[in-house]
């Protein structure tokens, strides 16, 4: 081997050694880097774990983790309290917690969890350890590993027993209320009918009595008989009104498009309006959706009230309407005797008639209020004694 070749080899060897040292140095640096990175990751993991642990422990709802076979792996404190099991000491499978009547629903939801990866707003009953039945609301989702394989499922379970009980109680009360309402209405019908027939008999008997003794009775007695007849008529009217009032609240109301303008003009032509009273509309009344008979009753009551209480020589009744967004606001204004402020609320209550007269039973305005309420409206008034009264009411469009 020549000197040159030896030197080339020596240089190559030197480079190889130096390269090896450089590689070792890089390796050391990488090791150190790796160490610090893993330190950092561990710290991050600790932090995240502690955060999660905090959520797990502090969450008010019960938090449950189970494996894919339904065996419970984790309970937070709320879950332990709710179900009563100590899962560190006893093994529990969710299948055994399902209330028997909700089994099918539970299986359907479980299948949904498997196919969609989650289910929401599951509401059913569960058994606790002491075999108590509780209503729960559950949102659940599948936990996946990093390769997207399902490994477990987690659920947030809320105890809604109290809420459910209240709901059930409410439903019971409602149906009870409905029933007693129906009964009451039926009762009113029967009572009215049963009251009317003896009234009619009395009426007939009294008129026979009058006819048979028209010559032998003195003036005072005839006057009293006349008063009996009037009272009987008033009583019959009262019963009719009670019957009307009790049927206003029934759900049998028909909802259709009603031309109020036509309805009111027809009404005015039918009603007895004394010659000294003028009824006019300032605007064309709109069409609304409602029950024709009841709306007719509403306008009839208010207009005839106005007619009834006009004491002026020249009476005017003004009907008007105004569009107020979702409702129409109607007004019926008269120049009658007026109503004192203290009675403004009272008059809408049943049997509150301010004027004792033969054609006033004190039921009309309470029917009016009921009809307005049925059309999602309100009724109120403005009035000055001796000057006049304006009734305002709103009806839903």
């Amino acid at each position: 081997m020549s000197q040159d070749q030896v030197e080339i080899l020596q240089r190559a060897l030197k480079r190889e050694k130096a390269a090896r040292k450089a590689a070792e140095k890089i390796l050391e640096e990488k090791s150190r880097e790796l160490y610090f990175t893993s330190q950092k990751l561990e710290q991050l993991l600790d932090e995240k774990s502690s955060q999660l642990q905090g959520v797990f422990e502090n969450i008010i709802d019960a938090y449950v983790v189970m494996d894919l076979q339904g065996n419970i792996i984790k309970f937070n404190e709320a879950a332990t309290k709710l179900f009563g099991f100590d899962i560190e000491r006893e093994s529990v499978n969710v299948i055994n917690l399902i209330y028997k009547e909700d089994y099918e629903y539970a299986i359907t939801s479980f299948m949904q969890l498997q196919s969609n990866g989650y289910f929401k707003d599951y509401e059913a009953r569960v058994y606790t350890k002491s075999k108590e039945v509780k209503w729960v609301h559950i949102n659940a989702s599948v936990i996946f590993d990093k390769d997207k394989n399902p490994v477990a499922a987690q659920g947030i379970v809320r105890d809604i027993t109290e809420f459910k009980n209240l709901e059930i109680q409410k439903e019971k009360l409602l149906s009870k209320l409905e029933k007693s309402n129906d009964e009451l209405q039926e009762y009113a019908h029967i009572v009215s009918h049963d009251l009317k027939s003896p009234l009619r008999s009395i009426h007939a008997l009294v008129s026979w009595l009058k006819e048979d003794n028209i010559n032998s009775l003195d003036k005072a007695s005839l006057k009293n008989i006349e008063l009996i007849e009037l009272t009987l008529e008033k009583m019959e009217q009262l019963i009719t009104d009670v019957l009307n009032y009790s049927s206003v609240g029934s759900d049998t109301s028909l909802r259709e498009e009603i031309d109020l303008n036509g309805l009111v003009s027809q009404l005015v032509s039918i009603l007895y309006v004394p010659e000294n009273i003028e009824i006019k509309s300032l605007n064309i009344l709109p069409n609304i959706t409602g029950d024709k008979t009841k709306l007719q009753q509403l306008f009839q009551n208010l207009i005839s009230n106005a007619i009834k209480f006009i004491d002026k020589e020249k009476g005017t009744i003004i009907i008007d309407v105004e569009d107020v967004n979702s409702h129409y606001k109607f007004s019926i204004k008269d120049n009658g005797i007026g109503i004192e402020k203290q009675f403004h609320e009272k008059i809408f209550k049943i049997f509150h008639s301010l004027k004792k007269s033969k054609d006033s039973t004190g039921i009309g305005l309470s029917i009016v209020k009921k009809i307005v309420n049925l059309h999602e409206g309100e009724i109120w008034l403005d009035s000055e004694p001796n000057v006049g009264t304006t009734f305002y009411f709103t009806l839903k469009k």
Partner: protein
Amino acid sequence: MKGIVFTEFLELVEDKFGLEMVDNIISSSNLESNGIYTAVGTYSFSEMLQLLEHLSKNTGISIDNLLLVYAEHFFSVIENSYPGLLATYKDPIEMISSIENHIHVEVRKIYPDAELPTFEVIEKTDNNLIMVYKSSRAMHHFGLGLMNKTFEHFNSTATIELEKIKEDGTEVRFVINKN
């Protein structure tokens, strides 16, 4: 530039032209590293240029052709060291078109600071592929060599044309037609 490109290059030079040639091109270049390379180190690209230039001068082979031969050698390094990577492909067009999205992703896992060229797929059918290579190193023939070997690996051949988009070779269109 990653050390593995230097160590494999010098090994090939030693293999083809002997240790004297290695000694010669290192001694005649002005190298910051003094010619000491380890696969896991990182070195200046200008060192590779000098080594290539001196080898070209001493052998009379153009730099492009040297790069082509070197790439063919380098493919065998990949074949031996990373057989798993090649096994994920069944077709050369598939493999070449996924340089950017797969192969370079894998390279970065081992060499996070590697400065890699980009290969943008312009057109791709079952048998044809048009890509644009971009790199300040202008080592398009290194790419060409790797592509040739890729077809060979899958027992196939192709006609690969290079069109320089930029005169200095930093942007080159590869038009690949499988035979």
